[in-house]
């Protein structure tokens, strides 16, 4: 495998391999929170922060602790614990240091532990064999891509709220169709770089 420049990986994670629209990760909060643009920004920032930090931490834990000790098939459990611990820690630190940030970001942090995109990003980076900087770049890019998608989706849904959607399709149904069109648009990016 060619050593990829971390910036290329970051760019690819935002556009060509958008974690939400091509890998379908983090759909649950995507559908339930994307009603308002403001809430989407909050959740988006929280995801960027947690994803960048947890991919880096998980890479370090995997490479320096799990592999040397031969415990690498316990990676799912360890990654989940690292993510949960990091989220809890961040929540405590933000609560103590910045009440304003806590009001805006705090309520989204607990939601993040069960966001499959966070665990997914960590699993992908190991499966694809990234190095440390590549992992950090990938985590950051994937977070930005996710945040971008949810904010765009919230904008569209606010407009759609006033239109006449068939009752059985209202809510998640129409959101999925919009997501489908967004995914189509993102397929257009895929000619630029191919990173696996």
């Amino acid at each position: 495998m060619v050593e990829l420049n971390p910036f290329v990986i970051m760019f690819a994670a935002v556009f060509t391999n958008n974690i939400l629209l091509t890998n379908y990760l983090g759909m649950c909060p995507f559908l339930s929170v994307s009603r308002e643009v403001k809430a989407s920004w909050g959740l988006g920032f929280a995801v960027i922060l947690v994803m960048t930090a947890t991919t880096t931490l998980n890479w370090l834990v995997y490479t320096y602790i799990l592999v040397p000790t031969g415990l690498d098939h316990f990676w799912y459990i360890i990654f989940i614990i690292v993510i949960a611990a990091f989220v809890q820690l961040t929540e405590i630190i933000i609560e103590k240091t910045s009440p304003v940030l806590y009001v805006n970001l705090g309520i989204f942090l607990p939601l993040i532990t069960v966001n499959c995109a966070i665990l997914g990003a960590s699993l992908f980076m190991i499966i694809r064999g990234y190095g440390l900087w590549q992992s950090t770049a990938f985590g950051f890019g994937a977070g930005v891509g996710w945040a971008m998608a949810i904010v765009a989706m919230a904008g569209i849904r606010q407009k759609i709220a006033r239109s006449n959607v068939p009752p059985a399709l209202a809510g998640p149904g129409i959101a999925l169709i919009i997501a489908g069109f967004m995914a189509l648009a993102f397929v257009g990016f895929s000619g630029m770089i191919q990173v696996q």
Partner: protein
Amino acid sequence: MAKSRTQKIFWTAFWEDNPIFRQVLGICSTLAVTNLIVNTVVMDLGLIFVLVMSNVTVSLLRNLTPRRIRMMVQVLIIAAYVIIVDLVLKAYLPDISKALGAYVGLIITNCIIMGRAEAFASANKVYPSLIDGLASGLGYSVLLLAIAVPREILGFGTILRGTPWAVQLLPESTTKWVIMVMAPGAFFMLALAIWIARGWAGGAGEKDKGTG
């Protein structure tokens, strides 16, 4: 009497609160693995196993688990069963294990499993929890297959591709709907499935339960 209660739990979990089209939970993996029927079936079996076993375990431990840390305990129980599924797949079905990739691990964060553990198993006895897990898993599997079958037929023109029983359904010369195998096709098919199922089952409209 006991039988009708079992049936009621089964029906509620299987259809009335169907994980996918009612609660719209756990759709990450729904979308990712449904481009081939064989991947879908393997994913379904893995999910049913994890769902039933974790429901039973959570239910067994429900009086011993301190309430404050019960989420963490549930995640660890689920993760333990997912590791079992992952190792079994790697050993016996290496090709499919590779195709499913990270999505086997992502069963852990599949909101259905957490949802059932939290909403049902943590407050009910072992046997009803087992039935509930089984029914939710089956309800999930049925919808997943309903999405996977058209995607594979339109996208590849085959049924059961990648198994010894593969059938070429559409002639080779048919134009394949490449979009069906790609991401947008999955979103459209799921929206369509939700639309049909909700329209058919009645009581349409918003019913919000999903958070994680």
